[in-house]
Each structure stands twice: as structure tokens, then as C-alpha cells.
């Protein structure tokens, strides 16, 4: 019942913004609303996909009462590694296996980095904010060092790297990846033992210890998943931008955290949902699109987003104090 109400509220907020976007949408030459054009709607979905994917795992991290500031840097590392593997490594490999190898290598490295975050958080009992702040700095440094601080261009020719980019920047592939990841993480949280453990640890870690739950293992997995999804988002980033950019993903962690928080997961953890995070991501995406269609200055856009974040959390607080 309460859960239904929570979902309904996120949904109501999203509907409100959608309605507003439709109402104030500029019109095309034929009189139709530009916002509602299929091309625009799918553009929104593609634009939110990277942050959306990262926010899915961020939800798990925040549910355990943690935070992962390193996701933007992990994305940069992964995007750099993808581009390097495609353009510089394995010159004699076959097309498909070369592409798959590049993706796997990039994702594996960022997953391992995430696992290291989790291991340090749980074994040394250092606050996740500090640990991931350190790795946000360190991993960014690694990405820049590996690429000598230069963009690695993938190009638009007919070579392997360009083929990769052509496939993985397809709207269907990008949006489909987000949809699949969302479905998987939804099931993971709602239906599995792992998901139950994640919520229990976030709600009361001491009680979780007394109940004999595998706290360390769960946390390492949670941060690994965060690394994995950031790495995957990095692969998509490389394709979309035709380059591996060690300076990519700056402040992505903040957008992802904002989406999670707007979706109703408090930073103290313990309660929240994937559906909420998806709503939060969509709210931010539609808002951005609406403002840009109406030629609102991007700096003003940031100010409006700031208000939305505070408003969303204020509404949630009000609701909680009633119950």
C-alpha cells in the first residue's frame, strides 16, 4: 500500500512534467508538437540511458547506505580502454572477437576497480564516500595516464573501430541496453536473496551482522556491479562519441545520485526501488529535453534542476513523517 503510494507519487511527478513538456512544446511547421515526435521521445531515452544505467547500480550502493563517487571516472577509464583496444591492440584478431574482446576487457577492468572499492569499504571499514572519492581521483588519473591525456579517436571510416561505433550508437541498441539492465536489476532487487540482503544491510547493518548475513561479500558485489555498469556505460559512450575520452563522465556520479534520490531512495539507505530510480532518471531527462526545446539557457537549466532535486526530497520527507 505504502509502496504503491510511493510509486504513484513518482509517477505523478513524471506525469506532471510530461504534461508540462507537451503543453509548452514548440510546434513544427506542420503544427505538431515537437516534443511528441517519435524522434524526440527516443532521443530523450537515448540521452538518459548512460546515466540511467549507472543509476541502477547506484541504487544498490545507496540502498546499502553507501555511495559511489567513482562512477564517472570508471566510465572514462572504460571508454578509454575500449577505444585503445579497438584502435591499437590485437591487430590480427577477427572483427567480432576483437570488438567483443575490447568490450569485455573494458568492462572487466572497471568491474575489478569496483570490486576493489567494495573490498576496501568492507574490509578496512572506511566510509564509502572517502574510498570512492579516492578512486574517483585515482581512476581518472589512470585513464589520463593510459591515454597520455589525449582523446583516442575511433573515426568514421570502414574499419573495425568505426563498425563498432556504428552498431553501439544505434538508438535501439542503447535504449535496449538500458531497458535490459533495468529489468535485470529490478528482478535482482525485488526477487533475489542478494537483493533482500542489500536492503537489510542498508536498513540496519548491525542487525544484519547479528542475523549472520554475508555483509562483506554483499558489499563487494554491490560495488562490483556499480563498476560493471559504469564500465558498460563507458563502452556506449565510446561508440556514441566516436572516441575514448579520459575526461568523459565528469559529474556523472552527481547526476546518477540525483536520479536515485529523486526516485525516493534516501541516502541513508534501507528503502527504495529500481522503479523509483527509473522514474527519477526519466524526470531529469524529460526536464532537460523540455528546457532545451524551449531554448532555455543551459545554466538556467541547472538552476531549475537544483530546485527539482530539493523539491522531490522535501515531498518525500513530508510523506514519511505522516506515516
Amino acid at each position, binding site marked *: 500500500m505504502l509502496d504503491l503510494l510511493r510509486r504513484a507519487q513518482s509517477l505523478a511527478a513524471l506525469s506532471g512534467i510530461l504534461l508540462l513538456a507537451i503543453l509548452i512544446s514548440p510546434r513544427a511547421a506542420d503544427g505538431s508538437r515537437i516534443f511528441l515526435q517519435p524522434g524526440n521521445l527516443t532521443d530523450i531515452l537515448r540521452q538518459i540511458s548512460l546515466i540511467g544505467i549507472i543509476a541502477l547500480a547506484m541504487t544498490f550502493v545507496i540502498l546499502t547506505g553507501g555511495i559511489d563517487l567513482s562512477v564517472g571516472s570508471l566510465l572514462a577509464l572504460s571508454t578509454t580502454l575500449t577505444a585503445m583496444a579497438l584502435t591499437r591492440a590485437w591487430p590480427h584478431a577477427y572483427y567480432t572477437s576483437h570488438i567483443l574482446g575490447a568490450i569485455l576487457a573494458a568492462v572487466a577492468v572497471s568491474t575489478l576497480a569496483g570490486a576493489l572499492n567494495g573490498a576496501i569499504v568492507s574490509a578496512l571499514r572506511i566510509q564509502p564516500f572517502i574510498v570512492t572519492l579516492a578512486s574517483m581521483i585515482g581512476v581518472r588519473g589512470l585513464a589520463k595516464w593510459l591515454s597520455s591525456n589525449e582523446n583516442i579517436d575511433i573515426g568514421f571510416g570502414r574499419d573495425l573501430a568505426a563498425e563498432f561505433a556504428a552498431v553501439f550508437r544505434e538508438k535501439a541498441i542503447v535504449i535496449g541496453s538500458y531497458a535490459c539492465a533495468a529489468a535485470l536489476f529490478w528482478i535482482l532487487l525485488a526477487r533475489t536473496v542478494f537483493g*533482500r540482503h542489500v536492503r537489510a544491510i542498508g*536498513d540496519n547493518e*548491525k*542487525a*544484519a551482522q*547479528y*542475523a*549472520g*548475513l554475508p555483509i562483506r561479500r554483499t558489499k563487494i558485489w554491490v560495488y562490483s556491479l556499480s563498476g560493471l555498469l559504469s564500465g558498460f556505460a563507458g563502452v556506449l559512450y565510446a561508440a556514441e562519441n566516436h572516441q575514448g575520452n579520459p575526461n568523459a563522465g565528469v559529474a556523472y556520479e552527481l547526476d546518477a545520485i540525483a536520479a536515485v534520490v529523486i526516485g525516493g531512495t534516501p541516502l541513508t539507505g534501507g528503502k527504495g526501488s529500481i522503479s523509483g530510480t527509473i522514474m527519477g532518471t526519466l524526470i531529469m531527462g524529460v526536464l532537460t529535453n523540455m528546457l532545451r526545446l524551449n531554448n532555455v539557457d543551459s545554466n538556467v537549466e541547472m538552476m531549475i534542476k537544483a530546485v527539482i532535486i530539493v523539491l522531490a526530497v522535501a515531498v518525500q520527507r513530508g510523506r514519511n513523517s*505522516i506515516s
Partner: protein
Amino acid sequence: MTAPLLEARDIGKHFGGVAALRRAHFSLLTGEVRALIGENGAGKSTLAKILAGSVKPDSGRILIDGQPAPISSPLDAQRLGIGIIYQELDLFPNLTVGENIVIGNLRYPESRLVNFQRIDDFCRPFLEQAGLRCGARRMAGSLSIGEMQLLAIARALSMNARVILMDEPTSSLFDDAAERLFGLIRELKGRGVSIVYVSHRMDEIFRISDRATVLRDGETVATVEVGATDAAEIIRLMVGRNLNIAARPYRRPLGEVVLEAQGLTTGKLRDVSFELHRSEVLGVAGLVGSGRTELGRALFGLDRIRGGAVHFQGRPIKPASPRDAIRSGIGLVPEDRRLEGLMMHMSVTENSTLAVLARIAKRGFIRRRLEISGLGPMVRQLALDCPSLASPVETLSGGNQQKVLLARWLLLDPDVFFLDDPTRGIDVGAKQDIYRIIDGLAAAGKGVILVSSELPELLRCSDRILVLSNGRLTAVYDAKEATQETIMASATNFGTSSRQPGPLTGKDAS
């Protein structure tokens, strides 16, 4: 007599859709000790919080000395001379004793800089009055729970309180600290301070209070002269029915030894040895700080075992974590259910099955039908009263929360149960249910170690009673022969006496 010092009329308060108070009446005379009693959820804590200004009532009026006195904040209450001592003591552990007294205190003249000398001077008389023998510069967090309570009283006194509300002040005290508190209450009464005493414990009410106000379902049922009534009458008023205090159950013969500790030594425990048999309830008595909780921590892998050995069914074990201990077959129901036991935002079902998810899952996926169907018999066995199995446990009463926590361990079904004060702060009816569960565990061949602050409870439930004092085992009694006096004597025997511990094994004792 004159107009009442404090009067509350028709107080109503809702939390969400739930009525905590409907039409509560309350009036208090100067220098009176008044017990405020009722089952959990009856509204006594809410009423106390309203009088102290930390909760705002929806309706009703409060009068002081016959004059309307709107109380809408703790500061208002302080101005009107009402002090409160919360069950969860609201102290700042990282500030000094003195700072705790002067912070937010209207009587302490404000200054921009902290002047410890002035704080010392201000606090000294009140610390003396409260009987807290410690310097004002000691950190509050280093005090024992009993001392913290005295500090809270000193704080109320320093605010010149004419009324002090105490919300279950003895729920975490052992009898000696409670004894000191009672002495202090008598002294305060002698000086004309009125005390409102919220409690579950019948014996205390008869010892210290003049009158008792009984609440039931948010309404005032009656206010009775304690001298002219008895416990059965008050219990009848509380529950609205006659409740027979269950007789001591039939004791069954003990089974084999399931758990054995030899010379167990940790940071707190010194050389503790005992045997626990199947079908046995082994009571553990001791003052707070005696090592009774630490005994559980050692067996459950939370404290490092520095010396001695623990055998489980003859095999030596050395649990390094609760996970380890659970695998060996030991379960522990912790003392503080909110802090160490329950996930307050999660549902009754999720809390109950948390430790046995592996059993009801297939390839990592929780089989939800199996999860819920497995819980049905448990809910009936525990007489669990909740709106729905999907309700978050934070919405349940203390007694029902405790039952959910017990359900978790009953489902896990270990061979040894360590129950650390399982009836702390819960109502009479739920206590009886928990005694029944403990009897049932023994009947099912489990070994049960029961820690309790209430001696009658230990005498009611146990086969044998271990007494700990200052980390050492000072006596072992057969529960049939022990009395509250003999147990108290052993519990306060601080290592100076040369008295030998009693017989150590069940066979010798029986």
C-alpha cells in the same frame, strides 16, 4: 486538597490513521508519585511526551495550577517546570556530564564561550541531589546506563522541575540501580517534586507510587489508590480481562550436554565455566555490566575469546563471527531489538525469514509463496498481532516486534538459543507469550540460555540460574531452591568474597 499541579483533559493524538490517545485524562498533585501504566500501545509514552512538549496533541487542554498552559515545545515544558527522562536517554555521549546539564538549560545563564569552571559550579548541587558521584567533566558516554539515568535526573532538577516524568526508567537497570532510583524518587517526593512513573513492572508500582493511572487503548480507564488495590486488579484494568499469571511449568528431565564452556575468558569475562543441556533453560542473572551480555557476545563470535574453550556437542568451537556461530548451531536474540535486531523499514515477513533465505530460495531467487506459507504456523505459534505480514515492523508494538525477532530465530532453528533480556520493555500479555515460547523450546530439546533483568522471570522460566558478577561466575542455583534474595546476594558479591561457586553441572544440581 488544592487544585491539581498538572491537569490534562481530553487529550487526543493520532499518528497517521492510528489513534494513540483518544480521550486521556490525567491530573497530578504536588509531591505525588504517580504510576502511569498500560499495555504497550495503550498510549502512556505518548501522553508523557505530550506533557513534556516533544509531541503536540491534536486535541485537549493542559492546565498547570489551574491555569491553561499550552505546551508546544520542550522549552515550554521546561519553563513550566516539567522535566522528562526518556527511556532511550536523550544525552549527548560526546559532551561532558556538565555540558549535558547546561545545554539548552534556561536556568544556566548563557555565555558565548564554554567556561568549565562555571559549569562545574552550576552542576555540583544537582549532581549531589541526584546521587551521581562523578565529576562534571567526565564524558557522558563513559557512564553506565544507571549513571546516565541519574544524570538525566540531575538535568531535570537543574531546570527546577516540579514534575519529573520517567518513561520506563528501570527497563535497562538491574535491581540495585533500580533500588537507588527508588530511594531518589522518595527523596524528591519529600521535597515536593511530583513524579510520573511510566512502567510495566507491577512490583515497582506497588513499592513507590501513591496512585496509579491505567490507560487502555488511548483512554484513561481508572486512577486507583495503590494502597487500596492489588496487582490482579490493576492487571484486570490494563487488559480488560482477568489474566492468570501462568504457574511454573512441569520440568522435564535434562538431555545430553549441548554446549559447554570451560574457563571462558574475554575482555570482560573471567574464567566462566558451565554446561548447558538439551531441554534446559539456563538463567543468567547479573547486574548491568556483570558480563551477562558479553557471555552471549563471546558465544556468538562478537567478542574475541582470549582463554578457555567452548564445546558444542563435544566438538570444540571458536566462533569468529555471528555467521560462524550460526553455522555451529547457536542463535542469539540481542538485547536491543531496534539497534541490533530488526530492520525497521522492512516487513514482518522479510524480517522473519532473513536468516533462512537460502532455504526458501531456488538458485538465488526467493520463492515468495513458500516464504509466506512457511510463516503461517509461526505467526499462530507466537500469537503475533500485526495488521498484515507486509507491514513494516516499525508500525508494530514492542511486544510484537520482539516476537518477529524471535520468529527469525525459531525459523532458523539452532540447537542453542541465547536470549538476551527478551521481555525488556514489553507488555504483560506479550511476556506471557514469550515465556510460553521459551517453555516450548525446552520441550523441543533445545538448550536455552536466558538473560533477564527481572528475577521473578528467571525463577519462573529457568531450570538453573548462573549468577555473574564483574565478569566472574559467582554462583549456580537450582531454580527450585533459589530466591530473589540469594540471587541478589551472589550478584552483588564483587569478587572480594571467597565464597565458592555452587554446583556447576545440571546433574549435580538436580
